[in-house]
């Protein structure tokens, strides 16, 4: 599903240049659930945003589902982000002006799906994450766990093959964190490929494999057993 070779990312120029990724080579198979761990500043978020086509690497190659991402133009990247990847963020990133259902509908707007179908799909997805009673609330009125469920529903609305989550439980208490991870576990069971960045070892143990980053390098991996 995902294959990166000698992936590099440098921010800035000249003496101020920071190498966030320093030659990462790894592969993630379709249907895999992996966690990414490592100290702060080790390049985990950078790695995830390159996987999510939010930015382009400075060097190396990236194949997503067999396609060379470097060869795609901006509009094609937008389409990949819209239809094939679902993002979940630490800070939820819901639009406070829109209600819960409208937030979940958003990706479908950019896919050009008609209004009626959009609504039905959003309601179905919110029911799935257990929020059918919160359709018309504005995000600020929800608890952190509920907001993250809305974000997960939004990530799932276009039925993407891959879910990318950057510290999805970073702003949640431990009980809610495990509820969200249980949700990811279900998505994995459906056959989706899932990549979760986390600092917490017990969260990482939901994955089948843990990738460790340090100083922009992929240093080792560990299979989760039991």
């Amino acid at each position: 599903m995902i294959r990166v070779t000698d992936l590099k990312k440098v921010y800035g120029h000249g003496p101020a240049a920071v190498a966030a990724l320093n030659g990462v080579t790894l592969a993630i198979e379709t249907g895999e659930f992996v966690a990414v761990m490592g100290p702060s500043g080790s390049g985990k978020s950078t790695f995830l945003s390159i996987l999510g086509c939010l930015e382009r690497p400075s060097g190396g190659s990236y194949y997503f589902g067999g396609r060379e991402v470097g060869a795609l133009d901006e509009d094609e990247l937008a389409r990949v982000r819209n239809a094939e990847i679902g993002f979940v963020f630490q800070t939820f990133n819901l639009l406070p002006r829109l209600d819960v259902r409208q937030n979940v509908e958003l990706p479908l707007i950019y896919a050009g799906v008609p209004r009626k179908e959009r609504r039905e799909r959003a309601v179905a997805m919110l029911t799935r994450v257990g929020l059918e009673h919160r359709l018309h609330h504005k995000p600020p009125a929800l608890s952190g766990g509920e907001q993250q469920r809305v974000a997960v529903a939004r990530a799932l609305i276009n039925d993407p093959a891959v879910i990318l989550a950057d510290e999805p439980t970073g702003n949640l208490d431990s009980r809610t964190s495990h509820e969200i991870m249980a949700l990811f576990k279900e998505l994995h069971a459906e056959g989706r490929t899932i990549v979760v960045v986390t600092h917490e070892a017990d969260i990482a143990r939901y994955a089948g494999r843990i990738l460790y980053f340090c100083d922009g390098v992929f240093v080792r991996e560990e299979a989760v057993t039991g």
Partner: protein
Amino acid sequence: MRFFDLWALALGNLAAHRLRAVLTTLGIAIGIAAVIAVVAIGQGGRAVLLAELEKLGTKRAFNISVDWVRGEAPTAGTFTLQDVAVIKELSPAVDKLAPVTSGMFIDIRRPHSRAEPLFCQVIGTTPDLTGVMNIPLAAGRFFSEADVAGHRRVVVLDGALAERLFPREEALGKQVFLQDVPATVIGITERQTGQLLGTMGMQKLVFAPITFTQDLLNTRVIHELNGAAVTEGAVEQAIADCLTILEKRNPGAGVNYTGMSMAESLAILGRATGVMTLIIAAVAAIALLVGGVGVMNIMLVAVTERTREVGLLMAIGARRQDVLKQFLAEAVALCLLGGAFGVLLGAGGAWVIAYFADWPPLISLWTVLLAFGFASLVGLVFGLYPASRAASFSPAEALRHH
């Protein structure tokens, strides 16, 4: 992204900052109101001029007076009835020539009436005036050469004035008192004669033989001559003849005789409304510029505030052009809102002008469409920079923004 969704999102975003939106649109509203005023005054002014031209009747008309601009005023010897007779005799180019002695704020009332007198403007002239301008009669007749020669106390009343003096009666044949001098009503004009002649319709006109008028006002001064040339092409010649003869006959008059064709004086009036149009157009341009910069400013603020949101939208599949369109739609919607206020403001203003200047209604559907077109254009022009800035964000960096 569908058209409807685009506008629904744009309006939703504006509604989230209502006060800000309304304040921002103020400049646009003033600009659009001015645009409407420009069109209204341009169209209305032209309509009035055309109507006047038609009413005044002949393109052969011209006017001889002294140089008012230099502060000259006619005296008893400046124009005489003999001058008029001589000019008509000598110049083959002159068809009609009517001397005019006029008096403003002349009180007029019914005999023995206790009612407050009305004020009118008396135009003392000769029957030739009817050959220079249209004076449509509703009843009776205009006075004749014999009436003039005989100093007869006869008058032709303005229709509206006749109605006010004799509300439920036939005015024709009745007596009126002009400054206590009795006169007989022999004719009644249709309402609304002479907006250019006289004081913009504020005072109603009374036509009387020039001889009687001079007796009434106790003066021998003739203020001006109104003539008509034999053909349109002969107007210049007719004016030149008049001036030559007047200067020959009155060498010691001490004034500069000046002549102007009707076409020329209408053109001057046209230029006056043209200048007004230009001034308001400048106001419109400045207001739209200031308003547009205001819109640009507020859109730049919005783009900065919503940087993360832009990153999120891109992460869930918005293309750069979707982001561009979204912010452009917001800028245009802002300007259309301002346009709507402006149309209300401008239509109200134009209505007031039309009411007081006695102009025809001036706001057409086209004017309104033009105004909204202008508003959209301002939105597009001034929204483009903020919108393209938002569209150029890198999604990853926008998401990192705080």
